[in-house]
Structures are given as C-alpha cells and as structure tokens.
C-alpha cells in the first residue's frame, strides 16, 4: 500500500518510501501521527476537513526538561498577563499560525484539556491568548501541549521585559473617531448655509449652527490635532522646520479665523474645512501606520536568547534564569541548545555551530578546557561548562552594545518632505505678509482676514496626504511581493542607495542546502555509499548530518566498534569492512594548504583512501542575474565572516578582489559600512544573522533575508522572504518610482494651492470655496498616488 508520493494526512508533506501507517492513514513522521491521534481522540476531526493539509511540520520532539523553566515562580510571574484566583491568562507568540485551521484548533484547546477555559487567536499578530486554571494544567504543561500539537510558542528573554503597549494604535483610532464625528456633524450644520443662496439662513438659526460648530471643533483642535501642533512647536524651538509646521499653521489659521468670525458674528467660519482637514490627515497617518504586526524589526540578542538554562548544583540539575548566571556556575547545554554566556568547556565534546552569530559555515570543535563564546548552538551530545562571565558581560552582548549603543532609530530628518515643507512654509508666510501689506493700503480692515485666508488656503492638505498614501501603498505592494519594510522612511532611503553590500553565509547562499559531489579515483558503489551513510548517521557533526541527508535514501547497516575522534572524524566496522570518514589527516589523504579550508569529508575503506565528498554552499537562485543587474548602477561588495574557501567561485560574480572581504568579524563589518559611508556612499546592507546586526543597523538601509520571516532576525529596516531574493533589483527600482510619484503629486497639490491663493489674495475666499477646494484637492491626490503606485508596480513586474 505504500506507494510513492503519498501525502501525510496531517501536514501534507511527502511521506517518502515508508510512511508510518496508523488507522489506515499515511503519516510522514511520528510527530504528525501523534497529533492526529490526539485530535482524533478528542473528536477534533473537523480540523482535517477545513484545509487540504492544515498541519505544520515540525520534527519530533522529546521535551524532557526543555520547558521546565516555566515552573519557576519568578518567570511565571513575568510571563502571565494576569492571575486572578484560580484563573491565569497568558498571551503567547506562535509563529506557526498560518491558516484558518490553526485558528480553529487553537480556539478549541479546551477540548484537549479541561483546565483550559478559553483561548482566542489574533491571526494578524500570530498570538494566542489562553485563560487556564493553574490547578488543572500548569503553564509548563500548557506550553508542552501546544508544542506537542506543533504550535510551539516562542518564548525568549525578550518576553521577560514586560509587555509592549499597543496603546499608541488605539490613541490614533480615538483621535480619528473624534475627528470623523466632528467632521460629519459640522458638515451637516454647514450645509444650510451653502444651499441657502442669496437670502441666507435665518440669522438666529445660523448663529446657533455657528456656535454648535465652534463647540464641536474644540475637541478636534485640542485632542485630535494635538500631535501635529506639539511636534511643530517642539521642532520650532529647536530651530527645525518640518512638515508639521505648515500643517499647524493651517490648523491654527483655520480655527482662529473661524472662531473670530463666529464670536464677532461677522461670518460663518471655516469649521467644516478645519475638521475635514484634520480628519483627512489622520486617515493618512492611520493608513501609513498599518504595518506588519506579526513581524518584529527591532529585535536584539534578547529575542535570540532563551530565558533559562540547566545549571548543575551539587551534581543535581536545576533550572535557572540566564540573567542570574554568575561566574563559576556550572551549566549543562544539550543538543541544539544555545550557549548563553562565555564559558569554559569542562566535560564532553563541543561541536558548536556559530553560523548565525559569526557567519562561519563550518561548526567549531572545542576540547575540554577551551573557552567557548556565547551565541553558538551545540550540535551533539550534552556538554558541561563553567561560566566565565555573566550575560551582560558576555562577548555577544558586548558586541551588541558597543557597535550600536542599543538600537538607535535612524535619522528621519532632512528627508524630502521636510525639505519641501521648509521652502513651502517660508514662501507661504512671506506671500501672506506681502498680501496683507498690499491690502493694508487698499482696504485696511480686511487686511488681517485676508492674511489668514492666504494661510488657510495654502494649508498643505493635499501635500500632507500624498506622502502617507504613496508610501503606505508602496509598503503594501512590497508586502504582497514578499518584502516587508519597517516604515515608509525606508522607501526613501532605499531609493538613494548607490552601494550594495552582501553577506555570504545564509544571504547569497541557501542556509539549508548544500551541493554535495564526490571526487576521487572512482565513484564508490552503492554498497559503499550505504556504508558511508550508516557511519555518518552516527555522528552529529554538521558535515556528517549533511552527508547523511544527502544519502538518506540508501539502506542502513549496523555499525560495530564505532569511534568518534573530536574534530577529526569517525570510524567503524560494517560487515567486517572498516570505514573511516573525516578530515584529510584522519583518513590519510594528501592535501595542500588551500584545500584545508574547504568543506570536505574524506573517506577511506579498509584504510584505503577512496576520495572525498565536497560540500559546497548552494547559491541562491537568480544570483547571477541579480548581481549583473545591480552592477550596472551600483557598487557591489561582499563581506563574509566565513573563510576564503570559495573565493574563486565568488570572483565570477563580484569581479574584483577588492570588493570581497573574508574572515570579517561582526565589528569589522560594522566598520566597513562606516568607511563606505565616510566616502559619501549610501549603503544597502543585506544580511541574515546576528553577525550582520551591527552592519545592518549602521547601513542606510539594512535588509535581512529569512526563510521564515516570523523567526528571529536581527534588527533591520526590512525583511525579505528568501525566495524573493532575485527580485531585489526590482524592489530598489520600485522605490525610485514611488519617489517620482510623490514628486508629481507635490506638483498637483501645489497647483491647487496656487488656484486657492488666487481666490485668497483677491479676497474672494468664502467658506464654500474652501470647503470645496480642500476635499477635491485631497481626493485627487489620493486617487492619483494610489493609481500611480499600482501602475508602476505592474510595469515593474512585467519588465
């Protein structure tokens, strides 16, 4: 019944040759089978009816003491949102949430365990809030339950810093609501005046309307528009003119002129334009602010580190918080666990994967007594270490704090819109003053009201809307194409880039794929290959693991007298044949110095050297075309933390040796970007790991590439799905067309301003003219920029 290409009923993965059969259904792994059993027992079959393959594939897990730290009172207190009598509530971030079945399953947790009373999913944020009775299910059991159905929550050191507030989002909604409410009502009260024609509205009624408008407009001025006024004021004190200044001048002019007219009973005022203006502005702000809630762009090492680790006290294992680790403590690090502090190895064989931290593609071997730096992941059997430095003092943390001083937001000053605003404000104010002076001679009593009329009509409503709508829409267009940016400022920065710097490991190479080829006197036969596979399976060294995966479809054999020499290789007997795989020296092959750097696994059978497997990084699809495209307009550099093993191969893309740098430490990368910037270059850095964090933050635009965008990635300006790597050039080009759209929309809005000024300077600006001009100009600009960005995205796609 096992035919090829059967799909696992739980996760939809290919089951391979030998699916696990349970209940007549094929499964790809025991993990999937367990989830199926669990769901089946609890009658949650509907899960499988909703989508073709709803599950998420995760490798099997033995939790052991992995989540034991969740029993610590102190940790629990920090993580729980509240605890009220029997009930506790916690919100967990689960990156695996991806479809409606996930929502359904996670909201039916109460059928899996009676202790859970309630669970609610926020799909956009990929969070689930669970209310549970601690007496019946502990936090640890809850998390283990989630992990067992393959929704492992991400709990890191970052969670211990308390909850980040989502209040800002709500505040904007309040302001928007108030402004919208006032705008609608004032419009209603203003219409009688527009429509009454020559005879006008009955004076008593008109006065009543006017006063009502004045009262309604107050909360808009004092609450909804407060951010603009305060920002303009603060900047002005520091001698800076930004966009908020002309906006504030418009707001204040509109309101004070209207209030004066109403109170002195000399006119109806422009309260409709005033509230409409603020309302439209806030809509623009809201549209621009809607970003990717589930993505984090400002993560630091804290979100990479776990909360707790196993400490050995008096030969007993104990769970302790990482921040409480002190010099001299003895810690136990298991397979795939992260080393959180600088420590010295005291027991076991350390085989540490630093690829994420330093960019080295090969695992590093350490022997007992050698120091081990924080940030690597142990691959292999558990090791014991003594702590040298506390977390705050560790090399990784220090590196982070030194090169960046925390995460500093990039300068947003001096951007295009602020420069435009500066000129705009100066011109408008001088124009208003000149007009006032001229009218002072023609008709002195009207001079002041015409001064404000100029300020009112010059109010850059359309101008202020063009940026948020162009950038907001561009961000959405990027998002649809697998490129997620932090905020709209990134678009402008990206358009100015003239130098592109790539990291190597994980950025231009695929992180989980290798090109494996055999070189030697003769190809090993199938039986020999199956021997090599069986031997490689015994070792947890990354090269062995890769080799094993490469050969995984061959038969397995029993290995006798298996021996592993740390940092050298492994050997064993299969069917009385002695197999050795490992380094050249271990196996007995002759190599030159250059070859030592290369990732190779040498093989000998019965002490007879056979040849070697070369494991080369697989470069991303479309790299050749991308670099060719980029080189036409940009300088392209490579900085890698890895060795020079692949220099010659890389030369074909990067052209000259001076653009390629190897063995670069994180701090070197940071310095390199700094140097380029000192030469007046605008640098785009593309990286993936913690080792690029400093460079990403220093560069004008830092983009990380991620296979799973919801997993940890260092602080950056944008996250790109790894499959979209080849579109990078298109993304940069699109940022330029966005800027062109903005410039053109500036022209359109200036045109409207000029028309309005024509009315104002001649003293013809009536409330109805203002009330028509303002919305019409805003709507044209919004429609124009939305269409224009969408069209240029289409053009860019088809090129």
């Amino acid at each position, binding site marked *: 019944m096992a035919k090829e290409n059967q799909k696992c009923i739980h996760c939809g993965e290919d089951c391979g040759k030998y699916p696990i059969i349970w209940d007549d259904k094929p499964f790809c792994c025991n993990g999937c089978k367990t989830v199926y*059993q669990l769901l089946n027992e609890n009658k949650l079959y509907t899960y499988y009816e909703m989508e073709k393959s709803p599950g998420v594939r995760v490798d099997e897990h033995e939790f052991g003491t992995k989540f034991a730290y969740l029993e610590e009172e102190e940790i629990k207190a920090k993580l729980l949102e509240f605890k009220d009598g029997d009930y506790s509530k916690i919100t967990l971030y689960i990156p695996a949430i991806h479809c409606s079945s996930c*929502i*359904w399953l996670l909201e039916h947790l109460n059928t899996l365990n009676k202790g859970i009373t309630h669970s609610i999913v926020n*799909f*956009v944020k990929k969070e689930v809030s669970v209310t549970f009775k601690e007496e019946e299910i502990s936090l640890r059991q809850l998390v283990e339950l989630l992990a067992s159905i393959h929704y492992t929550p991400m709990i890191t050191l970052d969670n211990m810093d308390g909850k980040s507030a989502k209040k800002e*989002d*709500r505040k904007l909604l309040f302001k928007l609501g108030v402004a919208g409410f006032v705008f609608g*009502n004032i419009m209603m009260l203003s219409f009688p005046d527009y429509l009454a024609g020559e005879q006008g509205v009955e004076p008593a*009624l008109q006065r*009543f309307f006017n006063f009502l408008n004045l009262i309604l407009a107050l909360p808009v001025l004092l609450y909804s528009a407060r951010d603009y006024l305060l920002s303009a004021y603060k900047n002005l004190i520091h001698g800076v003119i930004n966009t908020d200044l002309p906006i504030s001048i418009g707001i204040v002019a509109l309101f004070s002129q209207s209030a004066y007219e109403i109170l002195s009973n000399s006119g109806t005022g422009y309260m409709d334009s005033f509230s409409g203006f603020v309302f439209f502005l806030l809509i623009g702000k809201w549209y621009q602010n809607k970003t990717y809630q589930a993505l984090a762009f400002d993560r630091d090492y804290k979100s990479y580190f776990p909360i707790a680790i196993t400490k050995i006290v008096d030969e007993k294992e104990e769970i302790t918080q990482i921040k409480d680790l002190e010099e001299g403590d003895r810690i136990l690090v298991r397979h795939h666990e992260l080393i959180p502090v600088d420590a010295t190895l005291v027991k076991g064989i350390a085989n540490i994967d630093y690829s994420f931290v330093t960019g080295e593609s090969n695992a590093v071997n350490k022997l007992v007594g050698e120091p081990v730096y924080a940030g690597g992941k142990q691959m292999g059997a558990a090791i014991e270490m003594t702590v040298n430095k506390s977390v705050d003092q560790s090399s990784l943390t220090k590196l982070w704090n030194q090169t960046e001083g925390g995460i500093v937001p990039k300068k947003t000053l001096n951007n295009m819109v602020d420069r435009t605003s500066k000129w705009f404000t100066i011109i408008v104010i001088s124009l208003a003053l000149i007009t006032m002076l001229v009218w002072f001679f023609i008709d002195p009593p009207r001079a002041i009201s015409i001064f404000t009329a100029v300020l009112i009509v010059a109010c850059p409503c359309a101008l202020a809307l063009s940026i948020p709508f162009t950038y907001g829409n561009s961000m959405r267009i990027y998002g649809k194409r697998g490129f997620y940016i932090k905020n709209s400022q990134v678009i402008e920065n990206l358009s100015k880039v003239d130098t592109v710097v790539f990291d190597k490991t994980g950025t231009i190479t695929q992180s989980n794929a290798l090109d494996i080829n055999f070189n030697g006197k003769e190809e090993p036969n199938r039986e020999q290959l199956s021997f090599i596979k069986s031997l490689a399976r015994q070792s947890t060294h990354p090269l062995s693991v890769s080799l094993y995966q490469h050969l995984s479809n061959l038969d397995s054999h029993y290995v006798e007298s298996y021996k592993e020499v740390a940092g050298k290789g492994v050997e064993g007997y299969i069917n009385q044949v002695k197999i050795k795989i490992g380094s050249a020296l271990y196996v007995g092959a002759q190599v030159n110095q250059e070859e030592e750097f290369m990732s190779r696994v040498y093989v000998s059978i019965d002490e007879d050297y056979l040849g070697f497997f070369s494991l080369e990084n697989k470069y991303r699809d479309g790299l050749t075309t991308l670099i060719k495209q980029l080189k036409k307009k940009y300088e392209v550099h490579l900085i890698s933390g890895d060795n020079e093993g692949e220099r010659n191969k890389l030369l074909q893309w990067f052209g000259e040796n001076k653009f390629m740098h190897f063995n670069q430490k994180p701090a070197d990368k940071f310095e390199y970007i700094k140097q380029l910037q000192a030469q007046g270059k605008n640098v785009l850095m593309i990286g993936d790991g913690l080792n690029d964090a400093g460079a990403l933050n220093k560069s004008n635009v830092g983009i990380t590439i991620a296979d799973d965008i919801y997993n940890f990635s260092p602080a950056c300006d944008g996250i790109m799905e790894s499959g979209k790597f080849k579109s990078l050039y298109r993304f940069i080009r699109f940022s330029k067309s966005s800027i062109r759209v903005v410039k053109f929309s500036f022209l359109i809005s200036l045109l409207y301003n000029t028309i309005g000024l024509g009315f104002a300077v001649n003293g013809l600006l009536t409330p109805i003219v203002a009330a028509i001009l303002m919305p019409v100009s805003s709507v044209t600009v919004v429609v124009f920029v939305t269409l224009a960005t969408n069209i240029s995205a289409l053009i860019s796609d088809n090129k």
Partner: protein
Amino acid sequence: MTILFVLITASSFVAVIFLIAFIWSVKTGQFDDSYTPSVRALFDDDTIPENPSPEIKESSNNENE
C-alpha cells in the same frame, strides 16, 4: 422654525452616543484584530459530529469518551 433648535440638539445628543459607542468599542479591543473574527464567524458551532465524516473514521482505541 424654533423646533429646529430642539431637533438639532436632540440629534447632536444621539450623535454623541454613537461617539461614545465607538470609543467603547476601541477600548474593549474590537479594533485590535480585524481579521480573525471574520474567519471565526465561518466555523460551525462546536457540536461534535455524531457520525464522523466518511473520510475520517473513528478509531478503535478511542477511550476518551
């Protein structure tokens, strides 16, 4: 025409009630997640089917009744 004064005052009063309703809805988090509820609405009620779908039979070792 004086009735307009009363009517407009009354209508403004009603409008304020709606504003308060909006503020309440934001405060209770109804705008925090605008996607999940749309999916949730499509789920069937939590009744467990008497006869499981033909595709997925009930297993023999189903003890948790």
